[in-house]
């Protein structure tokens, strides 16, 4: 094949590509995200919570095993920031321990289950057939037999074993919904011309999935991973509340709330300390998820809103 170069032709079409390199997509997403004050606050809160949860010995002289027997049911004070419980455990320390577990479980479950969803959903959507139908059916089944039910019924089996079992169980029953969304998205992407182009140039199906399909769903996956972190924290706290989740000696926010609920009217700090932490963590995860969605979605309407505000101010 001859490749004679025609300089005139080269110029005619190329003339209009902007000379200065426009901002990359990553930078654009970061900029949009940073502009969203709520989401930015959310991510800061999560990071701070996580850091403090692990570095609490730096701030507090007490350990979880220490019981200040002279100061039981102590309301929050300078010595015991979040007060103490019936046997004099420092609630701040207890809450940080609980936060460690809750957040770690949430993050692990969120990330692992989303990765699993991506692989299974994309495979099912791309190849169709048996995998596809089986998956759809399992999702339907999960609707009828919610994961909360399954895990709580199975809880006697893993009584006394490590909290990592709980992570596995939560992952096992959390990926289906996202997988279904991924599957739907794959069905759409599959009809895109660049996927057809890969097929018609002889690209193998697996390479097509990992080179063209999964990367193009990354926004969806990032947002869904965030949502999954939130729902994993929620599930865990619910299960632990009934004693079906994290088992002693481990504590999580759920187990702390369970013990605090009874005294919510008499010793409110026992309930409010872990409850507020849980709500703040979940709220932060939710606004971060939303902020990510806005930042990743090119049709984001934030600019319009800003413009409008400016107009209102002028008026």
């Amino acid at each position: 094949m001859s490749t004679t170069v025609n300089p005139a032709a080269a110029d005619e079409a190329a003339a209009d590509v902007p000379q200065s390199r426009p901002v990359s997509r990553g930078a654009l997403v970061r900029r949009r995200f940073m502009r969203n004050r709520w989401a930015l606050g959310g991510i800061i809160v999560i990071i701070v919570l996580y850091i403090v949860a692990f570095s609490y010995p730096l701030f507090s002289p007490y350990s979880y095993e220490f019981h200040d027997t002279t100061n039981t049911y102590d309301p929050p004070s300078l010595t015991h920031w979040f007060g103490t419980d019936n046997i004099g455990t420092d609630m701040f320390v207890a809450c940080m321990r609980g936060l460690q577990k809750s957040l770690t479980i949430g993050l692990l479950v969120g990330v692992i289950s989303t990765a699993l969803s991506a692989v299974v959903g994309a495979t099912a959507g791309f190849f169709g057939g048996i995998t596809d139908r089986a998956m759809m059916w399992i999702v339907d089944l999960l609707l009828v037999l919610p994961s909360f039910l399954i895990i709580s019924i199975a809880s006697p089996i893993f009584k006394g074993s490590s909290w990592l079992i709980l992570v596995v169980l939560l992952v096992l029953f959390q990926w289906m919904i996202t997988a279904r969304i991924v599957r739907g998205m794959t069905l759409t992407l599959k009809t895109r011309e660049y996927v057809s182009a890969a097929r018609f140039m002889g690209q193998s199906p697996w390479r097509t999935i990992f080179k063209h399909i999964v990367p193009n769903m990354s926004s969806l996956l990032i947002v869904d991973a965030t949502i999954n972190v939130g729902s994993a924290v929620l599930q865990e706290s619910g299960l632990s509340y009934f004693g079906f989740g994290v088992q002693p000696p481990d504590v999580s926010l759920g187990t702390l709330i369970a013990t605090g609920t009874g005294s919510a009217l008499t010793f409110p700090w026992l309930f409010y300390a872990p409850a507020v932490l849980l709500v703040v963590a979940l709220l932060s995860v939710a606004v971060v998820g939303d902020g990510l969605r806005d930042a990743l979605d090119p049709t984001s309407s934030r600019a319009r809103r800003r413009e409008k505000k400016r107009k209102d101010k002028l008026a």
Partner: protein
Amino acid sequence: MSASEITLDESVLDGAGDGPVLEVADLDVSFPSEAGRVHAVRGLTYEVARGEVLGIVGESGSGKSVSSLAVMGLLPEQARISGSIRFQGQQLLGLSDVQLSKIRGRRISMVFQDPLSALTPVYTVGDQIAEALLIHGRGRLSKAAAANRSVELLDLVGIPNAAARVKAFPHEFSGGMRQRAVIAMAIANDPDLIIADEPTTALDVTVQAQVLEVLKTAKEVTGAGIVIITHDLGVVAGFSDRLLVMYAGRAVESGNVNEVYQQPRMPYTLGLLGSLPRLDAAEKLPLVPIHGQPPSLVDLPQGCPFAPRCPLAVDDCLTAEPELSEVDSTSGHRAACIRSAELAATEAEVEDSIDGVEASNAAAIEAAVEVFGAELVEEPKAALRPRAERPVVLEVDSLVKHFAVTKGVVLKRKVGTVHAVDGVSFEVREQETLGLVGESGCGKTTTLMQILGLERPAGGSISVLGRDVSTLDGKARKAIRRDMQVVFQDPLASLDPRMPIGDVIAEPMQVHGFDATHIRKRIPELLDLVGLRAEHADRYPAEFSGGQRQRIGIARALALEPKLLVLDEPVSALDVSIQAGVINLLDKLKAELGLSYLFVAHDLSVVRHIADRVAVMYLGKIVEIGAVDAVFGEPKHPYTQALLSAIPIPDPVKERQRERIILSGDLPSPANPPSGCRFRTRCFLHATLSDSDKRKCVEVEPPRESQGDDHEVACHFARAKQVV
């Protein structure tokens, strides 16, 4: 269809004063966006008289639709609007929603671009038309009367069996029928002004012809002024009285339709006219590519917005934006160009005739070619052996593809079979372009996918480069893929947005095991070949314009040095000014690299320009095939004749003289095609036949028979008819 069935309201005569129906003056519209304020319309001024048709022409983003939505008061609330919009003397800007709603639908009505989404899916078509009547006739009109009137209206816009169809939901209507229903709604209250925003863009050509006909009827029935907005210079040539050309939010030329086509005084208009391939050109004309792309409306450069793309631009063009000023005081022809006198001079110098086509605006086209410096790619005709001696690169024989029709969303069950492709045969020889044309649903895309899939077909056979695909194993199939590559329709969807274009072009070479050094060397060569710069290899597809992306797609297809290129509507998603450049590139590549093309398209003008041979498909069958000049010059199948006659020609004089064949009804369902000849249900020729001849059409499927040198037609009663 008869106008007398509709009784005119007295109110039609109300505003029938001498003044214009609509006067738009100094209209400015801007929107906020991420990048800053988008100045969509800038200082637009025009007026429409009663019974007059004004065509507004422009490419995407020129502000033509925004300006019409501003008239209707339907812009989103964050739009900032200034200037003046007077309807029959009444200022519309600043009116409240309630006040405007009394005018909308009664005195001004609108027809939108996308008929598929323009109707509320949950109400019946009849109810929606009746609603338009009831809103404005409250108290005066009973529900039953409104229902009766909606049947009349549907009948008027040419929906067969209207009394039954009013009860149908929008999803049960085809696109063309929905657009008719929208037009019925628009004329329901005998408005004084109808705004039609790209009313036929989403439709097939034969349906477009039907809808334009309905719009003409609407004009006659209501006597309203019409504003028709389009990007297609052909559509407005025959229909409008005056023309307004928009570019970058401004009117750049306006005037009597003949004058604008024959003596364009703005280089942009001139370029547009020169960039259109003509259906009636027996000989290949050079196509004018307008380089570059329209400016961003966020921060417009100083001076004439077209200057960066204009071959006539001088330094003065960059200092101030030219006003729309009169070039001919007698006819009111205006242009926004300081060089219009030079343009007139160039036009006076060129010959006012072109070989191979009789055009009323020949001088303008010649001038365009002269000004923009377009050249015809000369094919090395002498070096080419006669067709019969060249090897066949693609042979399709009696190809069949059936789809199962399923019902139900969750539990699918088979309820029938669609005969998407039913016995299609053709061949493509070396260095030849075969155009495969037909309207949506004719099976051309399915045929293409069958060929590209390289799987054993359900019936018939496909051979690529002499190898029957049903005998291929995985390895051989991959080897064949090297010789047959594809370019897709949508330049936006055909490139993976997450890959730099260098990787996009490298992918096929990686798949076929080329080493990295070779690939590195090839990428700049390929970019060069399609007219892009080598240093752009690390940029992402989003940084390129539509035309450039299509060039990248072509570079990817050429990476493996194929012999056959399958082109699936490669230019139909591009604006006309960009389209010409890509067509010229394809022409050039074919000549330089000795490629063969299978060119699938619905735009017959483009096919006439680029193809050597053409095959016309209808309902899964080829009805006519042969050399381009034979099929276009002397079409013998009634469907080909109707198809060709439906295509508007960008030449107002010629367009008004043409006889148009309007097909009745819609495409029959491919799940249940008519017996015998599949076209007979809509065939105008069939209707004139004697009973015994008609029976032949019903009972016997017409075979494809030779009608001269390289011209085959599948019609029992094939006869030539001049239609273009």
